[in-house]
């Protein structure tokens, strides 16, 4: 039963397909009969139009079209004197008597007629022009250039200021070649052979498309740390620093027994660099007593019993960092402590970078020395470090 029902449907389908094929052949035959064709025209081979952008942005009248094709094998063309490239929205079919499209909207605007030639077009004498309200690009040369069927390549940069169609989608170009300039200048869509019979032809499809916007964010970054143990900001830990021998200043004629260091890690993508400032409201202090600050600039460490000193220096400078010259960038055996600057609103600069940099480490060496008469007591001092990036 099932087979019996299917068989009539298959036969019906076959019959319908036969009718469709027959009607299609008839229709195509009719169309072909209506299209004017050059009797010996061959399709130009290896034809392409390379667009510098597929953007449909209306303001992008900066597009360049690079046309390439080869004089086809079997072509009767011996001297090329004219080329027409007609842009249409409806079809690339050579001989289609209609070329629809609105210039600038569905087909490009050949707003200027500049050209840069290549291949066989390197000979001088070529003149670019437009037809059909800038829809059609023409190229003529009364002298022409000799070409060889099957091998001569035509390369043409049509303009550097073409505006792509603003409507997204496919549009077409129809290429015609002429052995007489009148063929190009007299070109009509209804009959491309109005001025002269074209020799070869071909159609090309092009398309505008959305652009993909890819956005990636790189955020402003600043890695800054102060630590006393470890090797970098990730693993560094901070603890209080004890100065002297086991935390005691006992040798009065020695320069800085037990000087101690802290590390500063710094990394940033700040293009203007980073400045590290130190703040300290007071030198080493014990109640009403203080250990004298070493000086406003690099000052030699004393070895006399009458002198007490407290200061610091940048004892090693990380890659791409620089110490404040003349004050905290002291050489060994010198330290400084600019009381006024360190107690100012934003502190005193000790380090800086000139631009973005990976993490590097600088070392700060603190040193204190008591005099014989330095008042006994436990002395403390607190540093605050402030990093400021300029982005």
């Amino acid at each position: 039963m099932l087979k019996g029902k299917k068989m009539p449907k298959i036969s019906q389908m076959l019959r319908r397909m036969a009718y469709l094929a027959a009607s299609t052949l008839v229709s195509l035959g009719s169309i072909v009969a209506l299209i004017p064709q050059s009797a010996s025209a061959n399709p130009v081979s290896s034809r392409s139009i390379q667009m510098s952008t597929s953007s449909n942005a209306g303001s992008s009248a900066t597009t360049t079209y690079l046309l390439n094709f080869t004089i086809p094998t079997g072509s009767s063309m011996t001297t090329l004197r004219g080329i027409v490239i007609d842009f249409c929205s409806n079809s690339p079919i050579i001989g289609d008597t209609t070329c629809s499209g609105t210039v600038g909207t569905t087909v490009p605007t050949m707003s200027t007629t500049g050209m840069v030639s290549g291949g066989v077009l390197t000979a001088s004498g070529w003149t670019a022009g437009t037809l059909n309200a800038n829809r059609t690009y023409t190229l003529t040369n009364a002298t022409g250039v000799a070409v060889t069927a099957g091998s001569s390549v035509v390369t043409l940069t049509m303009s550097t200021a073409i505006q792509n169609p603003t409507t997204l989608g496919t549009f077409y170009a129809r290429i015609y070649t002429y052995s007489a300039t009148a063929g190009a200048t007299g070109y009509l869509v209804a009959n491309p052979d109005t001025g002269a019979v074209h020799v070869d032809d071909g159609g090309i499809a092009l398309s505008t498309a959305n652009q993909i916007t890819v956005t990636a964010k790189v955020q402003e970054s600043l890695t800054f740390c102060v630590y006393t143990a470890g090797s970098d900001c990730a693993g560094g830990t901070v603890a209080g620093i004890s100065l002297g021998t086991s935390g005691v200043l006992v040798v009065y004629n020695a320069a800085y027994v037990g000087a101690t260091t802290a590390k500063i890690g710094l990394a940033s993508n700040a293009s203007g660099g980073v400045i590290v400032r130190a703040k300290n409201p007071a030198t080493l202090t014990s109640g009403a007593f203080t250990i004298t600050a070493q000086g406003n600039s690099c000052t030699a460490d004393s070895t006399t019993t009458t002198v007490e000193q407290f200061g610091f220096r940048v004892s090693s400078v990380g890659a791409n960092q620089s110490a404040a010259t003349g004050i905290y960038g002291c050489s060994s055996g010198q330290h400084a402590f600019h009381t006024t600057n360190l107690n100012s609103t934003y502190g005193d600069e000790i380090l800086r970078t000139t631009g973005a940099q990976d993490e590097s480490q600088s070392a700060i060496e603190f040193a204190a020395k008591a005099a014989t008469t330095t008042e006994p007591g436990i002395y403390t001092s607190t540093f605050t470090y402030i990093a400021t990036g300029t982005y």
Partner: protein
Amino acid sequence: MQRVGLKRLGLLLTLVALLFGGPLRFHSQAFDTTLPNRSLLLSDSVATRTGVTYTFGFDTTLALTIGSVEFEICSNDPFPGTSCTVPPGFDISGGLLASQTGTSDFAVDVPSTNAHKLVLSRIASAVSPTTFSFEITGVTNPDDVGTEYMRLRIFNAPSTGGSLVDAAGLAFSINGDLNLATEVPPHLDFCVGVEIASADCSVILGDSVEMGTLTTGATAAVTSEFMVGTNAQNGYIVTVNGFPLTSGNNVITSITTPASSAPGTNQFGINLKQNTVPVIGSEPVGAGSGTITSNYNVPNKFRFVSGETIVSHPTADDFTKFTVSYITNIDSSQDPGIYATTMTYVATGNF
């Protein structure tokens, strides 16, 4: 059935494509900013610190119509217009605009300002490219140590109204203090010897002096040294303690009133001066300024009373090295014998 299913799937895909088939973008609000040299200067970077001054700075490279500027502090990222993770503890709501450059007519927009966001407003107008800075006082730093971010947005109307003109961000860092400590212990450095070389208590030479054979016609004289220094705030004293030269029950009498050396009489005395009769002794040397007690501070005059203070200083004093001169004279009736004594010097610091 399968064909129907495929058709439906195709329709579904088509619908999805139509709905979402627009431009493919990985997009967030980002600006090709015209605000270079952005910085945030802190007067204190320590977490939880109050009363901190924040100075925001940036440049404009184009003429912009500016009505308000928003500074927002976030913990997650510096991208303006995205969700903000408010840093715990941070508070700029009470911030005061202490100074400004670039323009002079911004004021804190209190209704638009909250704990983590400060808005400055002005009557909107075009501002030529310039350098802006705004010093805000009375800010409380975030509770947590680490990187924080500031987001800057400029609007063309007051109170962040109108349109967004430009935006940018930056990073800054909150840290802890670095504490330094050391101890200066109370100290009284005191040493005694026949000689203290180079004024260094670590180099003491000898602890015994020989005055030789005493005669009635000449004064026997020798010296010893001591050095003292302290950080005792109330200074120090040094006393001399001992007996006159003694041999069994025989004693060479001490000088109890300062007197010159008189050969042929019984005398034992000391002083701490450079003498000419006899030629013995030296003036004190060193960075200190200890004072010799008057009874022992006259050249050529000698005295010895056990327990007397011979040197003192009222405050902390650096090291001073003193030379003690001993003289002995005998008369003809002095019993023979070997005379000796032990002198003990005691330094006391008054801290």
